[in-house]
């Protein structure tokens, strides 16, 4: 583990005390900037050059010609297309209610990570160039009187740095008296940055892969097919049941869209096997698509409606090409927000799908009712080696819903965990449900060049986790988001936890489910022993034959002589 300044956690009440300000604590050049070739694929301007050295990234060396004018033009364009941006820039009263609500502020103490201060980085420019008060006091040489400021390179540096220290988790918007959502401001700021030569490498590079190959990993069809076959074998070895993970199966009823991390990362892949077992057991005819083999949609992170739509349309096309009747999403937070809240807008109308099911549907919306109806054979004791808690993913908690009732996104995953595990404890109330803290890696932050902010931003969640591990013997934390799972497995060791403590919710289902025709552990052992014996016998036979042949040859040789 590389050396980082890791905040201390106590586990006392599970809540991080609000720290005093330390200006510029997180001042930096920000994440790696995106090359012109990546920007080109996203339809962003490319008239800039890359700096030689990484340390110059984010230092405005990459700004395009006339960047100031183009930034202001983009701002004008966006505030004319997004009511959220226009209204939020105007109505903040600087009450400060949001100032202690952001995990990045709590973890870093940098005042520019207070939601309102983060908004102000953009708002002060809006005030200066688009409002009477800002123009008036700007002309008098005192724009600061009304919270306005000139747009210069230092402002752009702050934009690039601090808008990449926001995971667009929307916690601030829950607590703001007007619902001002800093995520909306962050997205707009990143869209502006993309138009002046300061895109972020991580997001645009990944979207480029998706547009070319179909998923964020750049995993081609053949490799995906191999991986799925391997998983089928794993399930067979473990259960003796042939559970399929079909790929590009025409005419299947369900198209499953899941984050590509589910295909290889731990513990994501255990979740994927869980969905497969549930579908198998319920007799659902399903398939994955190689063309749309990605649930995540990074277009949201960079605030690009156009790119987000382009990615979403792949799902529509895959559903049409395969002739499916339903679309179901796997465990992923941002994916589910885009799917639940935006997919119908971006890629609808889905009149060609079966209207008797929600479009799209979350896999938990299938598993939970099936468990409640007793359609799955469950042995809870299989999870008795764990005491679980559950991390509400920010984008699911505050940007989507599951089931018919508001708040279903909190109850449904918990119902599933309780149905398959005997031991479950929630973390403190101020850190769950819609007050949940982001894992620290959401919204385009999950990249190695932002490790420092990722570790510090995890502090509020780690503090709450420490509380339940210390006081309630919790051993594992379940999550339903690919980013949360990846972020936590990487970051929890810095706080003294083991990375194995992070589990997928469907992994718990997978552990506890007993498939029709599944062999018991003894049977599997017996089967393995029998197989082993068969092998041994075959080996012996082969050896005996070989020996016989050799002695025959030897005899022949002697007789020849």
């Amino acid at each position, binding site marked *: 583990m590389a050396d980082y300044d890791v905040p201390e956690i106590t586990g006392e009440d599970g809540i991080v005390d609000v720290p005093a300000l330390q200006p510029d604590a997180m001042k930096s050049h920000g994440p790696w900037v995106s090359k012109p070739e990546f920007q080109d694929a996203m339809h962003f301007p490319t008239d800039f050059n890359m700096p030689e050295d990484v340390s110059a990234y984010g230092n405005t060396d990459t700004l395009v010609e006339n960047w100031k004018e183009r930034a202001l033009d983009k701002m004008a364009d966006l505030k004319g297309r997004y009511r959220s941006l226009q209204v939020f820039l105007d109505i*903040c009263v600087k009450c400060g*209610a949001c100032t202690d609500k952001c995990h990045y502020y709590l973890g870093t103490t940098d005042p520019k990570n207070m939601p309102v201060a983060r908004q102000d980085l953009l708002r002060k420019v809006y005030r200066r160039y688009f409002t009477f008060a800002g123009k008036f006091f700007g002309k008098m040489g005192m724009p600061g009187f009304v919270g306005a400021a000139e747009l210069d390179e230092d402002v752009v540096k702050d934009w690039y740095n601090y808008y990449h220290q926001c995971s667009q988790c929307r916690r601030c918007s829950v607590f703001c008296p007007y619902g001002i959502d800093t995520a909306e401001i962050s997205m707009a700021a990143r869209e502006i940055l993309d138009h002046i030569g300061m895109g972020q490498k991580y997001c645009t590079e990944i979207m480029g892969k998706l547009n070319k190959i179909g998923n964020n990993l750049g995993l081609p069809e053949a490799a995906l097919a191999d991986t799925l076959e391997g998983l089928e074998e794993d399930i067979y070895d473990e259960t003796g049941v042939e559970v399929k993970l079909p790929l590009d199966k025409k005419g299947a009823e369900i198209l499953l869209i899941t984050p590509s991390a589910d295909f290889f990362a731990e513990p994501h892949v255990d979740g994927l096997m869980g969905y497969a077992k549930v579908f198998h057991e319920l007799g659902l005819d399903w398939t994955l698509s190689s063309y749309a083999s990605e649930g995540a949609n990074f277009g949201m992170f960079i605030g690009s409606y156009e790119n987000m739509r382009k990615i979403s349309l792949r799902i529509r096309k895959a559903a049409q090409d395969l002739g499916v009747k339903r679309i179901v999403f796997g465990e992923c937070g941002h994916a589910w927000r885009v799917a639940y809240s935006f997919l119908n807008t971006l890629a609808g109308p889905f009149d060609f799908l079966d209207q008797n099911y929600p479009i799209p549907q979350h896999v938990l919306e299938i598993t939970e009712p099936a468990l409640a109806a007793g359609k799955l054979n469950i042995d809870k004791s299989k999870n008795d080696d764990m005491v679980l808690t559950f991390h509400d993913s920010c984008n699911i908690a505050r940007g989507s819903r599951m089931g018919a009732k508001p708040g279903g996104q909190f109850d449904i995953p918990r119902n599933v965990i309780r149905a398959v595990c005997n031991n479950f404890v929630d973390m403190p109330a101020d850190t769950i449900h819609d007050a949940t803290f982001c894992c620290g890696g959401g919204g385009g932050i999950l990249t190695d060049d932002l490790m420092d902010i990722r570790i510090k931003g995890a502090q509020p969640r780690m503090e709450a986790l420490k509380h339940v591990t210390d006081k309630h013997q919790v051993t594992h934390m379940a999550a339903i988001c690919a980013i949360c799972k990846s972020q936590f497995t990487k970051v929890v060791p810095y706080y003294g936890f083991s990375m194995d403590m992070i589990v997928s919710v469907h992994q718990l289902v997978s552990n506890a489910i007993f498939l029709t025709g599944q062999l018991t552990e003894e049977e599997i052992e017996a089967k393995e022993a029998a197989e082993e014996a068969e092998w041994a016998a075959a080996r012996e036979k082969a050896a005996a034959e070989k020996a016989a042949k050799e002695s025959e040859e030897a005899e022949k040789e002697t007789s020849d002589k």
Partner: protein
Amino acid sequence: MQMTIGVIYAVLFWAATLVLVLGVANKIRIYAKVPAPLKIPTTPAPVTQGGVVIRMMQEVFLFKSLFRSDKLLWALGFLFHYAMLLIVIRHFRYVQEPIWGFVQFMQPFGKYAGFLFIIGLLGLLARRLFIDRVRYISAPSDIAMLLLLIMIGISGLLMSFVSHTDIVMVKAFFRGLITFDWQPLPTDGLLLLHLGLVAILMLIFPISKLLHAPGIFFSPTRNQVDNPREKRHVAPWAEELEKQNKMFLDELD
């Protein structure tokens, strides 16, 4: 002299009213015109329009989200806003003839609400000065706005309780404003200060954060129904992409 002052203040109030009404109307027009292209209610959110009305009412009248986030700020804000409401109701008596029974009834409450108004504002000011996070995000104009309100309150209270002005003349002046009829105004320093500050408040309303009052009704995170799966929601500019079968806005005809 009283006539000259009356004319000056009449012009000032007409102008301030015009700026306030047109300015706010213009902002409301913009907020209504700019589309919300995506469904972004902060969830859990109501699934019906009726539910949204209830959610909005809870925010507007009870400051529900603020209550969750900061109890002290909620208390101060609640005190200040409701005191102001009582004070405004009380002031109807200076333009109405005959005065409604309700306004009559509210008179004593409105009168003493002035003290709560000041207490609330002083509390808000103290937060800005003494809490480091709030100090950091305060621009000078944020402090100036509190001082403006405090001075309006103090000058008003002084007239109510210490040095009364010629209220009959004041009332004639304001009734005259409504009928575009010049009327004299007492040349009383306190009164002129009070009225001048109120006019300033009206003038800055549409160009400042005071827009939070109309703005909250347009906040998409609070005013949207949570029904994106059931009902397709598309902004006109996004629909154009579909119609012309294009991926990017700059490819549109």
